[in-house]
């Protein structure tokens, strides 16, 4: 190998370096950034990158969780333990509070991913956050594939996909008018496989449900839904114990598990590399609603 070959970053190192550059730009240029942290794998990876970006100093911004109230208990416990370990401030925007005081109404299907937009936007406004880190990746979904790394939101939190700012080289422009904010996606160029390979390379801890385990599930809309307080089988749906894992973590009442034997990170990588379905296609009922479901939600201010 020649010298120049040795001094070439691997794909993961390249992605890591790009993400750290983005995170540092935000910390330097914005007054009040916040990182959206759900305990899901993408937000865990993003927070891990933030701890690396500022070492030995602590992460210089708080984290926020938009809590649907439909949580997997182990994910919530993981969230709290992580925040505690890193000494971070956690803001919680609670969908349940909005439902309790009537600002939001429960949907007829009972699922709550869609209901997150208003608490999210209010949480941003109330705390005067001007930059909001999201773990969204362009490979997730076709509307996400179109979004800039720095994505401007107007004073109503709306995204205008027809009129995005040019984004040139790695010269990110975070300027905005009062009341507007910027969503920032450090993992834009990562794929699901990159995320898992990085989790392996960095030995990053995740909530246990990302690995195969025995769970009581029933089938709905072609997905395996976990039996819980918020998701009970209806008539004709039978409960079975199956070996499953989760590819994404969202509202527990409509996030599907996939059958899997992958109990280790290496096994998950092999599984993801060979998959024939996208992670959202396999696990999110809400994204199947219409062709442009994600785009429409994003325009309104969703993640």
């Amino acid at each position, binding site marked *: 190998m020649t010298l120049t070959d040795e001094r070439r970053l691997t*794909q993961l190192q*390249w992605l890591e370096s790009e993400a750290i550059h983005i995170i540092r730009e935000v910390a330097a240029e914005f007054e009040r950034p916040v990182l959206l942290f759900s305990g899901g794998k993408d937000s865990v990876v993003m927070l891990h990158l933030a701890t690396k970006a500022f070492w*030995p100093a602590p992460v210089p911004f708080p984290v926020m969780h938009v809590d649907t109230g439909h949580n997997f208990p182990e994910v919530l416990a993981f969230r709290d333990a992580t925040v505690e370990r890193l000494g971070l401030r956690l803001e919680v925007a609670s969908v349940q509070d909005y439902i309790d005081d009537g600002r939001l109404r429960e949907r007829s299907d009972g699922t709550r991913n869609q209901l997150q937009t208003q608490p999210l936007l209010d949480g941003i406004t109330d705390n005067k956050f001007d930059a909001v880190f999201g773990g969204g990746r362009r490979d997730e979904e076709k509307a996400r594939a179109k979004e800039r790394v720095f994505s401007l939101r107007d004073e109503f939190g709306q995204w205008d996909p027809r009129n*995005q700012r040019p984004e*040139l080289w790695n010269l990110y422009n975070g300027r905005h008018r009062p009341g507007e904010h910027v969503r920032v996606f450090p993992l834009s*160029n990562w794929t699901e496989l990159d995320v898992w390979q990085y989790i392996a390379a960095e030995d990053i801890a995740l909530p246990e449900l990302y690995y195969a385990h025995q769970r009581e599930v029933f089938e709905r809309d072609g997905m395996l839904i976990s039996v819980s307080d918020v998701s009970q089988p209806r008539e004709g749906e039978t409960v079975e114990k199956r070996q499953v894992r989760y590819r994404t973590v969202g509202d527990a009442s409509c996030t599907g598990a996939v059958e899997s034997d992958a109990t280790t990170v290496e096994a998950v990588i092999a599984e993801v590399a060979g998959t024939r379905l996208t992670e959202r296609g396999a696990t999110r009922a809400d994204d199947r609603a219409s062709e442009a479901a994600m785009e429409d939600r994003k325009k309104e201010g969703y993640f």
Partner: protein
Amino acid sequence: MRTLLRLATAGSVDDGKSTLVGRLLYDSKSVLADQFDAVERVSRDRGLASADLALLTDGLRSEREQGITIDVAYRYFATAERSFILADCPGHVQYTRNTVTGASTADVVVLLVDVRHGIQEQTRRHLAVASLLRVPHVVVVVNKIDLVDFDEATYTRVSDEVLASARSLGLYDVATIPVSALAGDNVVERSDRTPWYDGPSLLTFLEQLSPAGSPHSEPLRLPVQLVIRPQQAAGDEFRDYRGYAGQITSGLVRVGDAVTVQPSGRSSTVTGIDFAGASLDEAFAPQSVTLRLADDIDISRGDLIVTSRSVPAVTQDIDGTIAWLADHTLVPGTKVLLKHGTKTVQAMVKAIGGKLDLEDARLLPAESLGLNDIGHVTLRLATPIPAEEYLHSRDTGAFLLIDGQDGGTLAAGMVGDALLDTVAEVGSAATPA
């Protein structure tokens, strides 16, 4: 080790860019079943006999309604040789700013031309953008070859025409490939319907391209993003820690190296290279690291740390070439913000020195620049910056012009006027004596 290649499509509206990207993904087995099912469903609803592969990237509602690409879609795929980041850009003139966005980070531009129509104004504009941005490679796909019965003579005429236009814009090392994006000829596999073509398929060509230059032989440049000073926050061990965090844009740094900080001109020695708790002996572009220096000199965000062996001069006067991306017109006397590396300074447009005439690849005199014009400007800055010719450095030679009021990005800027010089040279050489 698998290398990463960033690719952007370009070319006039409807020449087949999105179809080509869809074909590349589909034939390389990079489309997952549910994505393909969704595309097939939408295609069927529209009465199409087969899946419209352009829908794999044209994902916005309005794109699907209008059948055009509006903004860049990023897609990812890998072969045994290489990982690719594909940026499928729009062809429509109204969305040129998005095509500039996609091309600015590309290692290779794949420029499409419809074999029936030949070169269009947008083809020329995108060639000019690729040349201006110094995208390392350009490959021309002469598309829709199925519609001219795979005719060699028609292909040759169009490819000669594009190559001539490329040369007039200073692009000499350009390959051309006859393709049917719709049917897949010469996209992933070589086609037996073009026996007269003996080059590689597009994918093979892309897999064999030499990876983007490894800039380690270039002098060290590190724009300081922030100063890391934990004070009490990280315990006694780090009470006096002070590190300068940034992503190396070119070159290599080792512990013990002499460095200079611009614009102050102060010098020091590197005593440590930190990355998240690890101490490195050396680091190179494009690593994000934190440097420690021997002396407590004044360094803050916006400064540029460079090797003391090659220190760029600082200047308040910049001659540059810009691609103007805003709807309103730029006139001399306009005040803007200029972002260079991690520094943003006030700037005044002193003069406009002409604009590129795409039809004849000439520099025309101009008093103003309008949307999508490429032109020459002279800028006066409120504070000096260590600007270098874009020709020599794609990082320290690039800048943005930003609207100080609404924060919008107005222009992509490049220090120096290499493209316009080339145009002037080629133009005068072509003029008979």
